[in-house]
């Protein structure tokens, strides 16, 4: 779930039509019309990426008169199916996978089970990736991959692709760096423990 409280406003006089804003927008909410940036407010989730990368400072973020939230309701989905998808992506359904919006894996899995087929669509539905716009792309791509979905890359720089994971690193590489301070096997064990943890357990710290 994400609260949407701001929106971008383009100063048409300043806009030079370079299109950078549209190339970085994680929800594909910006297009160029007659060489000027135009924001589709229906799709915008207020991340401010356009404001932060506009080379001529033509985009201002302004408060919405009526803030709103976006979220995917997973109550009508099988939690078993959600768990299965998350675990296939090496995630626990209760894990927060976006530190800015506190979106959990279960909600993104729910969005995918309800038909979302790309990171952009998932962002519009859940609001994930609408804070820093940086850290959560891999869990999103991993969940899509686990669902057998190969999303089509947008034309801009929104994302490029899946990257390596520690549990896929070869034994040769693990052995090569074993003495250099990397604890690959131990970390894999830890990550697997989290994936299979029973969320309801409710441990205390240090238990």
């Amino acid at each position, binding site marked *: 779930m994400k609260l949407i409280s701001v929106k971008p406003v383009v100063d048409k006089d300043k806009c030079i039509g370079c299109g950078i804003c549209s190339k970085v927008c994680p929800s594909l909410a910006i297009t160029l019309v007659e060489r000027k940036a135009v924001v589709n407010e229906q799709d915008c989730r207020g991340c401010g990426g356009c404001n932060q990368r506009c080379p001529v400072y033509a985009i201002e973020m302004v408060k919405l008169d009526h803030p709103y939230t976006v979220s995917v309701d997973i109550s009508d989905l099988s939690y078993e199916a959600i768990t299965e998808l998350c675990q296939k992506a090496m995630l626990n359904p209760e894990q927060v996978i976006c530190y800015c919006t506190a979106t*959990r894996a279960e909600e993104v899995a729910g969005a995918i089970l309800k038909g979302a087929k790309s990171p952009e669509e998932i962002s519009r539905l859940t609001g994930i990736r609408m804070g820093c716009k940086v850290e959560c792309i891999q869990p999103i791509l991993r969940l899509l991959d686990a669902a057998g979905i190969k999303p089509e890359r947008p034309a801009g720089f929104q994302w490029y692709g899946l*990257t390596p994971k520690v549990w896929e690193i070869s034994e040769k590489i693990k052995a090569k760096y074993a003495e250099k301070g990397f604890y690959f096997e131990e970390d894999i064990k830890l990550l697997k423990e989290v994936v299979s943890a029973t969320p309801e357990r409710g441990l205390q710290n240090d238990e």
Partner: protein
Amino acid sequence: MTNKPITPGTNSFCSDEMADRGCIMPMAPRASQYGIAPEFVKKRLAEYPEMTSLTVKELFPDSPDVIYPGDKGMAGIRAAAEKALAKVDMSMIKPGQSVNILASHHGFTLLGGEPYAELLRVVYDVIAAKTGAKDIRLRAGVGLRFRETEEYIKRYKLDEHFKGKAKGMAPIDEGIAIQTEIGTLYGLKAAYDADWIIHVHNSDVREVHFHRQVDRAVKPFGMSYARIETRSTYHWNMGPRGANFTARSIFDSEFVKSKFAFAAFLDMCPSGVVGVRAENDLYALNDQLTVNGLKYYGKIMTLLGEIDECIVGLDFPCPVPYVFAAGVIYANFTGANQDLFDLEKPLPPYTWYTEAFYGKNGKPLIAGVSPMNPAIRMVVHNYAWGGYPSAFFSEHIPTIVVGQEQAELFDRDPQNLQYMSHAVTASSLDSAMHFAYETAKTDKVVIFDGAMGGINVSRSLAEMLLEKAPAVSARVDKELMPKWLKQRGIKPEKESL
């Protein structure tokens, strides 16, 4: 009543004299789109009469001497940089070729930022003089505040020094695929769009919770020079101790190696700049800095872990986790109840992997997760920026934010929409401190205000730190340092690097 300022490095006093000593006054608030306007910062924690300063040398007499802060000022930095660069081979750079000097935001937060800016200027000057190259650019990467280095480029007039060829880079900018030993990762196109790259950084340990002092010198290749896919790999795909392997993988790629010319670092310790180091072999530099980082920062971090109870004051122009005291960032103090350098311990109390290991009921999903440092009874957030997801801190540690303007800043920040859901607001620093003292029931205060050369604390805490420092020093030398080095594959004889 306000405290009188003292000059770092000049004071030497015993606890009996504490009543007469002042505080190291912190850097003035900075105008930035990521923080409140300086005029809204009405008072600093260091102004209170119950606060005092300790220099790092007082706590640990074996701390290295520094060239900055120092009598020579910025001239000392320039001289050290020129001397270090004189022995670097730059013959691979030909007059008609292009050079990208790669920088990161972090350096500009150290000691007012000018030492790092000066190092960048010297690197430019020496390359131009030694090689005849004219197309020398500054490419300055960021954390999660995409215009931060743009602000620094203007502030330090680096665009003028680089003849208009200075620009910031953000992780959402156009990328390039880099083939590595473990698969494809992604760098920023602007970082690599020259014939040669120069890596200009610093050795301040900073995010020990992330990199665990493993390959510290290489980290920007997986962060400030990298695309979102790579940075997400670091924090999601590699595990809490393997994260920095992402950076090593990129640096070791044929593509990056084919462009890398040399590195120049500000060699930092908790009290300032020890010197400048420059090398063609980044791993040789990495080994030196790993040892020095453990040695220089290990003692102060271990000492701060001895604090039994305290109120924390945040009072520096950078995001919440990065405000620092004696070279230790607040994020590391939230994990100071654990030895962050000990690689046998998989999870720091705060790191993004840890944050992701909490379930919906607010409890860890697995056993063995240490809580955020229970010694921190309350946080008074007098002045710190947004632009970094920080709600986990206010959720786990009682937090008072000073001023409605600051609360609103966080409420508008897309990375911190929940920060104020867990914090309360006070109208002034005085009322926040009154509430904190009354509620936390302690008079020990540690201020994360980046005080140069030392640490600002309450008198009660100063006395405790002075008392505990000798034993901590001995423990680090005899027990911890050998263990830390062994865990990183560094033989004890290299300790004198």
